């Protein structure tokens, strides 16, 4: 597995949301991505997954250039993501939600086997009792869990989680936390975007800090948290962030 992000720039009119971001992920690892609101984290995710075109720069996945490809093609190459706001398919049942990526990735997949796999994942996410319910009747947190489960059905190598903890009941947060660990143990690379410092520092093996569209730090979490520019830009305002997200 190898994801290379090279000198990505993104302009929105006059605003430069990303100013030449580069990094590489070439092994299973959990990468935390933090930065103040408006730093460009979601924009970067959108560019990597093909939802937005970069103004300049390149993205390579396993030796293939993927910027300019359409999002579905990138997803089928094993790069998955969730969205900051929940986007379950509300008028499909939970099981149908799970089957969409499985069949999209591999149309010839055995539907029964897929349903079995989906049941296991749903059981892990404590959604098994809702298998045949419409997604719209799930709570917000449960929909978030469903999105995470659905993502696994795509069988991605690398996943980007945009704020998976935001607005989720603490008990379900715990489930998400376990989910991330399990996915990591299953040998996948994860980019975790979060404002929740506690989970970032416990989970991350590597930490990237984005500030005003610039990657100002990239390294082991313990080193990064001591870097003065990081403290200035972000960590110094920890309390403020916390109250905002409480």
């Amino acid at each position, binding site marked *: 597995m190898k994801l290379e992000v090279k000198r990505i720039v993104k302009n929105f009119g006059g605003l430069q949301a990303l100013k030449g971001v580069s990094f590489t992920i070439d092994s299973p690892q959990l990468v935390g991505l933090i930065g103040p609101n408006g730093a460009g984290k979601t924009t970067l995710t959108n560019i990597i997954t093909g939802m937005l075109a970069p103004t300049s720069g390149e993205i390579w996945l396993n030796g293939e250039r993927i910027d300019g490809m359409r999002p*579905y093609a990138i997803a089928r190459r094993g790069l*998955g993501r969730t969205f900051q706001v929940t986007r379950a398919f509300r008028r499909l049942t939970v099981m*149908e939600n799970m*089957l969409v990526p499985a069949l999209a990735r591999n149309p010839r997949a055995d539907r029964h086997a897929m349903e079995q796999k989906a049941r296991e994942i749903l059981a892990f996410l*404590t959604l098994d*009792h809702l298998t045949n319910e419409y997604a719209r009747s799930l709570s917000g947190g449960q929909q978030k869990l469903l999105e995470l489960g659905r993502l696994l059905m795509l069988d991605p190598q690398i996943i980007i989680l945009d704020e998976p903890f935001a607005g989720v009941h603490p008990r379900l947060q715990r489930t998400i936390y*376990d989910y991330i660990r399990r996915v990591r143990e299953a040998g996948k690379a994860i980019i975790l975007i979060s404002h929740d410092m506690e989970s970032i520092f416990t989970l991350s093996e590597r930490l990237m800090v984005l500030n005003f569209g610039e990657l100002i730090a990239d390294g082991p979490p313990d080193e990064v948290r001591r870097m003065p520019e990081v403290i200035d830009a972000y960590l110094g305002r920890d309390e403020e962030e916390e109250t905002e997200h409480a």
Partner: protein
Amino acid sequence: MRRSAQLNTQYQARYTLWGLAALGVLILLIFPLLFRQQPYWLYIASQALFYAILASSWALLAGYNGQFSFAHMAFMGLATYASGILGRETGFLAFDLSPWVSIPLGVLFTGFVGLVIGYLCLRLRKTYLALFTIAFAEITRLVIKAEVKFTGGPNGLPLKPLLESTSYVPVYYLMVALFLGTLLAMYVLVRSRYGLYFQAVREDEDAAAALGVNVVNTRILAFVVSSMIAGLAGAVFHHFPTVGLVVPDEMIIGRMSLVLAMAIIGGSNSLIAAALGAIFIHFSLEWLQEIPLPAAILRTLEAHRATLESLGFGLGENGLKTNAWRMVGFGMLLMVTLRFRQNGLIAPLLERLSRRHVIQEIAARRRAREEEEIEVSDEPNEQVGGAS
């Protein structure tokens, strides 16, 4: 104990549904026997099936895929005109083809136009798509109407008969076959993975794309299939010896709204509900054309003939003619349905029938889980993640 009861309801639901479907098919098949004395109703029935195909194929596009196109009748008309022109003896593009050849060609042509329009619609969201398809439908109709030399203009284009016999019976059965065939084909399609893609794209294009669904192909597929089915229905129906003519005003937006009303009142997120809505509405409209009334009442009304006529009603031999007013009623019904039963009047009933076991199952599992949670509530939170 609980498990077997559950299975029972599940099979019950399934049998009820299949039973109902079989009953429906049976009614369709014996209908001519019931109305042997009134062949007129057979004609109405084949017309109703024509609308049923249009409404259900529109539901495939709008209900399943979320593309609220107003060009459906235009596609119906395009295939019909294409087939009619190819079948003509003289004139532009006239090849004197048999309807059995010209209809498939007309449908293919419509599929191609559907492909182009579906492609152009890709970037358009709900309201803009509606506006664009209205524009397309009107352009098509106006051009067909204006180009008298190519299309016969406002007086319409005569079409060769598809069958020799002018009896209503074979026409009716052909329409039944077409209806069941298209419905089955669409049903198979929506039950396949494409059905899942259609709905995923309807719900959230970006999320579907992020999960590997090819949104472009999905949207275009829905567009092409639904316009080809509309075209097929139109071409076959108008080639019947009992019809034999197509006029541009069949593609008018008002006619489109009727099909739309049929699908919405039935329920546009179900093919069968949309079809049933169309059949029900078409028959009601026909019945309302002249509401049968007892002679005594008719005689009383006769005294007020002038008033009635000034109000747009009329008096027939056997009843009260409602003319445009029946449509006023359906317009109202459409708005009220949208406001208070957004999923239609028939679809929720079918949904209840087909998901009865699911609903019970969910309730049972909910109960079980709640009991379980009460038991474990004071254990540490290990329980939550440890379910695997």
